[in-house]
């Protein structure tokens, strides 16, 4: 496998009494696309949110491009720390609910962080943002406010916004789950293109078709652990584990 971008070792996370992650190991190589499947409550979103320290794990290690990002005294306390800056500037995330800034236009959504965090000039940030919005097919929507955009368009702005920080890894947290069915394709196409350009991606999704076609590897989670993983064809068509079979049966039966 290529250089390891993300290495998770023994990740544990609990919310109060509820143990959501019970020791997860996962390696993601540079340029690899990993799709994470699993029933709701399996811990897949939490795992994703651990990778950029939105949910700092209680135990376990996370290495990002070889750097241990969990060891800092402040990591995960919500305060600025070397680790947090290191992670947030290398890892982009796209959320199920888009979370665009409603008081800013599409373009301003994309330029805000590069200007405020990376200190880029307004002109430079705008040029790059226009280019990114063009790339996700929204070149004509730059001055629209989010409320004027469809869900699919909003989600593509959110992808452009994350890409504007030049991330090395992109995380996708059920990004099509809140969309009307006819809007899903445009978002998946954008992600497909990103994958073909060699972006390292961890994708939590229910889109089996996307996983089959785009993923280099599929990971199936249940009950806070990885049940099985492998190439899409193997996990989706010839699952070894009973739990995977049952889940796929339920999803495909729809």
């Amino acid at each position: 496998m290529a250089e390891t971008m993300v290495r998770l070792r023994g990740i544990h996370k609990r919310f109060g009494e509820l143990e959501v992650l019970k020791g997860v190991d996962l390696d993601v190589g540079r340029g690899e696309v990993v799709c994470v499947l699993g029933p709701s409550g399996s811990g897949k979103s939490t795992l994703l949110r651990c990778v950029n320290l939105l949910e700092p794990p209680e135990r376990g290690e996370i290495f990002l491009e070889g750097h241990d990002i969990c060891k800092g005294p402040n990591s995960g306390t919500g305060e600025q720390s070397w680790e947090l800056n290191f992670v947030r500037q290398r890892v982009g995330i796209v959320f199920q609910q888009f979370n665009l800034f409603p008081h800013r236009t599409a373009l301003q959504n994309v330029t805000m962080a590069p200007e405020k965090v990376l200190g880029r000039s307004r002109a430079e940030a705008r040029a790059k943002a226009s280019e990114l919005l063009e790339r996700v097919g929204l070149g004509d929507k730059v001055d629209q406010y989010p409320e004027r955009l469809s869900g699919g368009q909003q989600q593509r702005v959110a992808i452009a916004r994350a890409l504007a920080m030049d991330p090395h890894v992109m995380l996708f947290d059920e990004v099509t789950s809140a969309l009307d069915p006819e809007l899903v394709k445009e978002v998946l196409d954008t992600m497909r293109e990103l994958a073909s350009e060699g972006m390292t991606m961890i994708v939590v999704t229910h889109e089996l078709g996307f996983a089959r076609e785009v993923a280099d590897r599929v990971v199936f989670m249940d009950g806070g652990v990885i049940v099985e993983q492998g190439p899409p064809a193997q996990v989706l068509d010839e699952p070894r584990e009973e739990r995977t079979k049952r889940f796929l049966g339920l999803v495909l039966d729809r």
Partner: protein
Amino acid sequence: MSEFFHQYFDFNYMGEHFWEVLEAFLQNVLIFTVVAVLALIWGLVLALLRQLPGKKFLPIRFLTIAYIDLFRAIPILIVILLISGGVPFLEFIPKEIRIPHWLGKPDPFWYGVVALMLVYGAFTAEVYRAGIEGVPGGQMEAARSLGMSHWQAMRNVVVPQAVTLIPAPMLNELISLLKDSTLVSVIAFGESVLISRELLAQSFNSSALTLTAIFFILIILPMARIVDKLIARNQGRIARGSHMEVA
């Protein structure tokens, strides 16, 4: 019945004492104005301190919450009486501060201002907090995920959205504040209620109190209508699926 009208609605009496009562009422407006400015700032400071993230700031958060709870719980009248009765005797404080006569105003004015500011700072802090917490958590998460610090996210993302949620409830607090400015009468500051009661004591006629009430009504009714308008506007936004307008 005519007895009653003579006691409370003697328009001749009101006319005779109109300017006296109006001048006293303007003292209420003055207290209100000074306290509103101070409390809006102090409340914002408290609200932001309360939002500080992480373990490091736990003591500050705890103290802030304790302050807010305390001053929301103590009746304002008691705060006024304790401050005016206690501060003058704190001898470690320089005399100019513990018995202030700044800007030509007597010390009861300033005790009242400080007491109301301490209490209303706690109330306005809660309004700010409701505004900040009314912004969906995903906004802060998205901003932080893009590498912004807590303060950058607050300033650029959360506060600009929170301010649109704040005006209506804040105006309600300010209406209460204007009315509570009459409480300063208990420490012998010559505002409208004190003056009206002095007139009552002299003439056994209550119409000055009625006149004072009319002044309050005249100034507060428009404020109440503005509150209604603001609420209607916010509901319009929610109906349109957004609580934002063009920034």
